[in-house]
């Protein structure tokens, strides 16, 4: 699969994004009987382990407005965020039938209880709620996490009989290292030339990393780089913003577009946080690759609302990001009823004030269709910075 033109390449990503049947994954699975599909929810999971078990980790980020919610509302009251509804809807309407298992990373109470709902509803499938340590001492939290990961790999082994072995896991880590490297380049490119790579296109490419197998994705992304180089687009008079708080339930594409159309280039965001979770290259030459993953998680992961901040204030880290990306301001954009994001907001806002960084905030849900209020707010934000400063 090679693309000669940027819009075709993006169209490919869009098609994958819109395909709520995950047919890419199904096709991948058909090629070999030991292949399995493991769905995972936001935010972070160590995909390397799944990969080396010969399984495809597929990110499930809800289904936005691409599926009408009928059954989902029977599972969740109106004052719970929207994402778990479309996840249920996908399951109920058979779109996840080809999946062999699901991993629910510890992120919040909703996802936690969703794992229980899946257990009640899908008795025959592999369901795992994966707890991450909130203690960052290697011999305490690290030890616990290592045991959790070991338990995960033994459980996966039971599915297809494929053992996770050291050199294969090392290989998996290296190929994901490469993915992380490429994605970081893409992020840097977007930040430098936001007019060439719109937030929506960037997002679609990122989503592809959670749909395609890594062996297909890495060349796809290299292909994109070649095409991006050829693009010739003039920058517009827009301000630069960072989006914070959308790490789980995803804002609708229309919303991302609205923000940019209203005059704000998005130069950094946390929509697909899993992809940038590990901030360092993980060593691939150890005889303890699980240990390497544990170390990466404990010592080299990005700040997030779902991780105990300890003595590294998240606000300062966000301010750092603003500086790195030369952003004019921060847009706190969180799903309605999202505890992790919304409970962080007061302190993050205070931190932005402290650093004299402009910000504004709003809430959304994944199937929002009316962007009026957001357009006005984003527009005013841009006006304010443009007209006066």
């Amino acid at each position: 699969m090679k693309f000669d033109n940027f819009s075709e390449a993006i169209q490919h990503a869009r098609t994958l994004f819109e395909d709520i049947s995950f047919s890419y994954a199904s096709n991948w699975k058909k090629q070999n009987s030991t292949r399995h599909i493991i769905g995972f929810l936001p935010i972070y999971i160590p995909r390397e382990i799944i990969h080396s078990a010969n399984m495809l980790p597929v990110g499930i980020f809800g289904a936005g407005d691409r599926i009408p919610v009928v059954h989902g509302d029977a599972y969740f009251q109106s004052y719970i965020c929207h994402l778990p509804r479309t996840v249920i809807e996908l399951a109920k309407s058979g779109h996840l039938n080809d999946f062999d298992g699901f991993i629910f990373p510890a992120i919040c109470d909703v996802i936690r209880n969703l794992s229980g709902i899946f257990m009640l509803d899908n008795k025959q499938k592999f369901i795992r709620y994966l707890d991450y340590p909130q203690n960052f001492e290697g011999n305490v939290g690290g030890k616990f996490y290592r045991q959790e990961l070991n338990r995960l790999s033994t459980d996966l082994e039971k599915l297809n009989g494929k053992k996770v072995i050291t050199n294969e896991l090392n290989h998996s880590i290296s190929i994901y290292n490469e993915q992380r490297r490429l994605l970081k380049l893409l992020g840097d490119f977007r930040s430098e030339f936001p007019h060439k790579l719109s937030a929506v296109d960037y997002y679609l490419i990122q989503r592809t990393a959670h749909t395609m197998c890594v062996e297909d994705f890495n060349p796809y992304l290299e292909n994109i780089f070649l095409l991006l180089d050829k693009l010739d687009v003039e920058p517009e008079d827009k301000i630069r913003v960072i989006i914070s708080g959308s790490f789980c339930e995803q804002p609708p594409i229309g919303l991302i577009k609205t923000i940019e159309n209203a005059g704000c280039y998005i130069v950094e965001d946390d929509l697909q946080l899993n992809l940038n979770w590990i901030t360092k290259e993980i060593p691939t030459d150890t005889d303890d690759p699980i240990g390497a993953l544990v170390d990466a998680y404990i010592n080299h992961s990005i700040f997030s609302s779902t991780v105990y901040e300890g003595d590294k204030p998240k606000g300062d880290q966000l301010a750092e990001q603003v500086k790195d990306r030369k952003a004019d301001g921060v847009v706190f954009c969180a799903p309605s009823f999202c505890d992790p994001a919304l409970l962080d907001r007061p302190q993050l806002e205070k931190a932005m004030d402290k650093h004299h960084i402009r910000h504004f905030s709003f809430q959304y849900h994944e199937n929002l269709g009316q962007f009026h209020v957001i357009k006005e707010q984003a527009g005013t934000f841009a006006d304010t910075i443009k007209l006066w400063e």
Partner: protein
Amino acid sequence: MKVYLGIDLGSTTSKAVIIDEHNRIIGRGITNTRSNYKIAADIARMEAEFNSRLMIVYQRLKIDFPEEIEWQNVLPILENRFQYLQFKTRFDHLSETMITQVNQLENKDQCKKILNLLTTIFYDIEESIKQKFFTGKTSGTSEFFRDLFSVAYLHAIEDFDKTIFDLMTAIYDRSITPVENQIIDFNFEELTIRALDLLPDEMQTYHSRILPYLEEVSNIDLAPEDYIGTGYGRQLLPFEKKHIKSEILCHAFGAHAYFPKTRTVLDIGGQDTKAIQVDSQGFVTSFQMNDRCAAGCGRYLGYIADEMNISVSELGPIAMEADYETNICSTCTVFAGAELREQLNLGERKENILAGLHKAIVQRAFALLARSGGVRDEFTFTGGVARNPAVVKYVTQMVTENYGKIKINSHPDSIFTGALGAALFSATRKI
């Protein structure tokens, strides 16, 4: 005669059903008076009584003159005329009230101008509505005085300039509520006899046959043995506690009476939507209701109809003409109204927009249904909104898509379901 009465005081309409001792419906009445629940209940009950009497006349004529096969054609026409006379009484009353209002205006020039305008407007409205009644284009239970009048009136003044338009709407708004809320003591006998005179010429032959029956039936005692009130306003009724019952149970029971195999009931009323699961005896096992927000219930469509200045009963048929459903992004009724205007200005066909709006209301109802436990076989759709063909269409579509092959019932008298359930409860009184 032993009869039982059920009254459903809805948020937008009040319904009454009278049944006999064999649980057979003998009369229905409905009003959209919303002033005071006592008045609304009285009016609905009075209407049900009139309807019962006409039914009794019909039954007796059928038995006494079986050779005349025409009764089923004549009686509805008689009822039309009867309803027209009721309408006319209110209409006269309203026009007087409005004229009094106009006479109080300070600006005498304006006063004169408006009086002139009103004379022709009243004449036109009366004529056109009379035609509607006489040709059976309205049936007394689907169109109310306010709706009939206001659509015609607003249409007539639409093109006047701002000051006159504003004044004339204000005059109407000020007059309608008191007029609507007045109990007019219609004399059944007198009014039906006058209606008899209004029968078309070719039916005048029945005049003398019917007359004695009307006189006789007018005096039958229809005071109920027992009665039960239900619905949104039931708490406000001056009834004793044992005469009040939750509308959820009444709707379920009524739906079960129409369709004994019902297991799931969806009721979309004026201000609330209910999803109810029932067992084989018509008893509720679980239910869900929406919050107090117009989005997703009858008033949503009512508001849209007002925005477009057409009557609610026209909405559905227009939406049925759509080639696809315009996506409506706003949930709020008012915002949806604004979106409707926007879309119209962008050149979208009104049929498609309306279809989108209808679909939206059904989608909301399905969230509630899901929460109450889904849709089980058989599924019965009740409430005033079940009269809207476009809503029925989308309900059917969504049931089939999401729950498979399920028998779907909807009764032409579905608006009376709650009242029927209440009447049945009062007749059985086991609880």
